[in-house]
């Protein structure tokens, strides 16, 4: 078996219909063109999941992938991607999580695990190095994420087994169910958990005794020590260690971009009561970290007094916290923690869940939704009890919850109301930051390959509001001013390419990107000394470019065009009513034009041009798009 430095060297394919397992060597060309992780998954999705495949059919692929830096002392390498065609959006589905699953997958010996077909009976897959078992999961059906994880640990007699599982929401075919590792580490966007459920599969559990070798240990350690030192003295080190991403809530409040009551306000009068600062002061008992990480930014909390006293768990992170507080107008932190706990146990995407509830609450507030239609739920802003009840109803598709279980786009279509306030792009619900006050982020939501999402680009640098950086990086001072629109095409293209390699190396975006510990040049350096393959800053940038273009081509093949790269009307037509971004509005056309121009894509169609695709080694995509009649490529 050929073995690589950094990589495990094997790709595992499991066919649940045929009950067959196949192991193939990881191809060197795949490594050089796509690095790993998200790059591997997107490449395979394009190749193996043809146009028009039903996401919930056995033809869909469910893919787990890790990266070359994972399972080492490199402090950022703990992530994994889970990808499939999304049942929620009908386009590329993909989600990423940290914790300890990814390293174990590497130690078990696999760079990528592909699951296809559909099992006749409920199963979970248990991998112990070369031994792969489809184990009976009849007793796990209906069990929540926490129960399932515990039962599998008991089943296999091994406490340290890593489990990625779905909860009841996925089994009930809620279209935005996630895959959860380490209980509270969700890869939950785009409904990949629902894809797992459609294969009659409950979990992927693994344990490995393998090891990872490094091509140039001396240079590897030197780089790791450099990065460790930079992390320890970084101004974000302590805020992250104390609050993790929950620190963002008060920052968003101060900037006037905190989505409040379904984006009808950009500031929340109770923000301090539900902040990361308050969690740190009154709830947190210790810090936890992902594999090998020197910045332990996860927290374990215990509710000591009041409602739900005695509840404990890991987290929360900003998106879920903000979603179950400001977005729905809830000022009760204990209720929010209960909501996050529920969403995790039931296996729901907290962002999409919060949008569904907030959307319904807005309709309720305007009188467009009645108590009769909600099945008796009083969906007033901030009604915590109603929110908790609704989360359960969504997961079990009961009553009004059934409507929301298909995501906000379909819910609005079915209800025949609230279409213009269903806040999504391409069917994926918008995250907790108001794009009117963050133009680069907003453009990122509009063009991201998995629908409205910040993690495809996360151009955090515009939060600095320092024109010097924009001038230095893009020759446009406005590029790094959050309320300016000029230069955002350049900004988003650059950050999209960066995020694509970060996701493919499977390193943490908080450290690699936000803390700027892994710029392109250093990503090239560490990957080269780890793997022994030659990488440069330019090659890394090109790999990012290749991944973005291939993902875009996948969307084009499914019928996505410029008309789909839009933000909901609220952001384009209604100025922000209050806060420090008051009056801001999102003018999308000039920003899209700049973005497509920077990408060398067609302006009219918003799709990659044939010439561009050929230039970055995607000639086969041009031919394929032509065959599929999707060519607006010239």
């Amino acid at each position, binding site marked *: 078996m050929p073995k690589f430095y950094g990589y495990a060297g094997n790709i595992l394919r499991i066919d649940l219909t045929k009950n067959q397992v196949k192991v193939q060597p990881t191809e060197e060309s795949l490594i050089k063109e796509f690095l790993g992780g998200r790059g591997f998954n997107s490449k395979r999705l394009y190749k193996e999941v043809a146009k028009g495949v039903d996401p919930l059919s056995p033809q869909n692929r469910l893919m787990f992938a890790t990266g070359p830096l994972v399972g080492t002392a490199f402090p950022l390498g703990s992530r994994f991607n889970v990808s499939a065609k999304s049942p929620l959006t009908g386009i590329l589905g993909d989600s990423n999580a940290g914790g300890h699953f990814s390293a174990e997958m590497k130690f078990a010996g696999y760079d990528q695990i592909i699951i296809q077909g559909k099992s006749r009976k409920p199963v979970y897959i248990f991998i112990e190095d070369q031994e792969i078992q489809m184990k009976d999961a009849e007793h796990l059906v209906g069990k929540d994420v926490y129960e399932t994880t515990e039962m599998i640990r008991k089943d296999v007699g091994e406490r340290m087994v890593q489990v990625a599982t779905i909860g009841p929401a996925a089994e009930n075919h809620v279209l935005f169910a996630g895959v959860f590792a380490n209980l509270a580490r969700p890869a939950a966007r785009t409904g990949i958990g629902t894809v797992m459920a459609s294969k009659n599969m409950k979990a992927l559990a693994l344990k490995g*005794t393998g*090891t*990872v070798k490094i091509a140039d*240990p001396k240079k590897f350690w030197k780089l790791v020590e450099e990065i460790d030192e930079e992390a320890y003295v970084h101004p974000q080190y302590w805020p992250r260690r104390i609050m993790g991403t929950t620190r963002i809530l008060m920052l968003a409040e101060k900037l006037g971009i905190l989505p409040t009551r379904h984006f009808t306000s950009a500031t929340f009068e109770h923000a301090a009561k539900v902040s990361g600062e308050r969690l740190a002061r009154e709830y947190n008992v210790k*810090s936890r970290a992902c594999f090998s990480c*020197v910045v332990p930014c996860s927290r374990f909390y215990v509710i000591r007094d009041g409602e739900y006293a005695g509840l404990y768990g890991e987290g929360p992170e900003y998106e879920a916290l903000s979603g179950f507080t400001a977005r729905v107008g809830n000022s009760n932190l204990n209720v929010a923690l209960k909501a996050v706990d529920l969403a995790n146990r039931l296996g729901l995407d907290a962002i999409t869940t919060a949008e569904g509830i907030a959307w319904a609450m807005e309709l309720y507030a305007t009188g467009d939704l009645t108590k009769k239609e909600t099945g008796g739920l009083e969906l007033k802003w901030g009604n915590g009890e109603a929110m908790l009840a609704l989360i359960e109803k969504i997961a079990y598709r009961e009553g009004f919850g059934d409507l929301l279980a298909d995501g906000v786009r379909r819910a609005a279509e079915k209800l025949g109301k609230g279409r213009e306030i269903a806040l999504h792009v391409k069917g994926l619900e918008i995250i907790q930051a108001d794009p009117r006050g963050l133009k680069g982020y907003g453009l990122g939501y509009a063009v991201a390959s998995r629908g409205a999402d910040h993690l495809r680009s996360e151009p955090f640098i515009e939060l600095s509001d320092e024109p010097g950086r924009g001038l230095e990086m893009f020759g446009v001072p406005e590029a790094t001013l959050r309320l300016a629109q000029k230069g955002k095409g350049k900004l988003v293209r650059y950050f999209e390419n960066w995020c694509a390699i970060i996701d493919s190396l499977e390193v943490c975006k908080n450290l690699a990107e936000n803390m700027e510990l892994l710029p392109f040049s250093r990503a090239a350096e560490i990957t080269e000394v780890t793997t022994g393959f030659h990488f440069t800053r330019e090659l890394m940038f090109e790999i990012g470019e290749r991944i973005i273009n291939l993902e875009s081509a996948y969307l084009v093949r499914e019928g996505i065009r410029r008309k789909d790269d839009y933000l909901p009307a609220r952001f384009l037509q209604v100025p922000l009513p209050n806060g420090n971004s008051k009056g801001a509005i999102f003018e999308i056309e000039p920003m899209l034009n700049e973005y497509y121009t920077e990408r060398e894509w067609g302006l009219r169609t918003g799709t990659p041009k044939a010439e561009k695709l050929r230039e970055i080694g995607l000639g086969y995509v041009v031919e394929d798009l032509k065959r599929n009649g999707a060519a607006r490529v010239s």
Partner: protein
Amino acid sequence: MKRILVDVDRCSGCRLCEMVCSFSHENSFGTSISRINVIKEDGFGFDLPIVCWHCDPCKAMEKCPEEAIERRDGGLISVDEKKCVGCGECLAACTIGVIKLHPERKTPLICDQCGGKPLCVEKCPTKALTYTETEMQEPKVPNQVLEETLRRWRIIA
């Protein structure tokens, strides 16, 4: 003698100690070849590195049928790999269950304190590990540490 001590409230469970240990001793990264190991209970947010306490007397040494486990000058326990037959008697004998066999060599992996400058202590991101002069006392089994910790955090009464 000096021992590696753990502050369980500080441990983030990152397992970096296992990574630096495995690489410095075995020249590759892996939790299966590390001499220090972190026990985790995600449900309770509990992380506990366990590493040889170099007990005196050492139960594993007493049980070893080949007399392959010996005490060196300075009190450290070590394994004579030539004598060891990989029977695994020491695994069950060890008070805190810290011993495991190398997956290929099948000989026990026991902490050597890196010759007096333990790398895991040096690299621990939260200073949960310290290298401290400590009198011999019966080490606590992991379950006992878990119980005490959860009581302190008021998760159990």
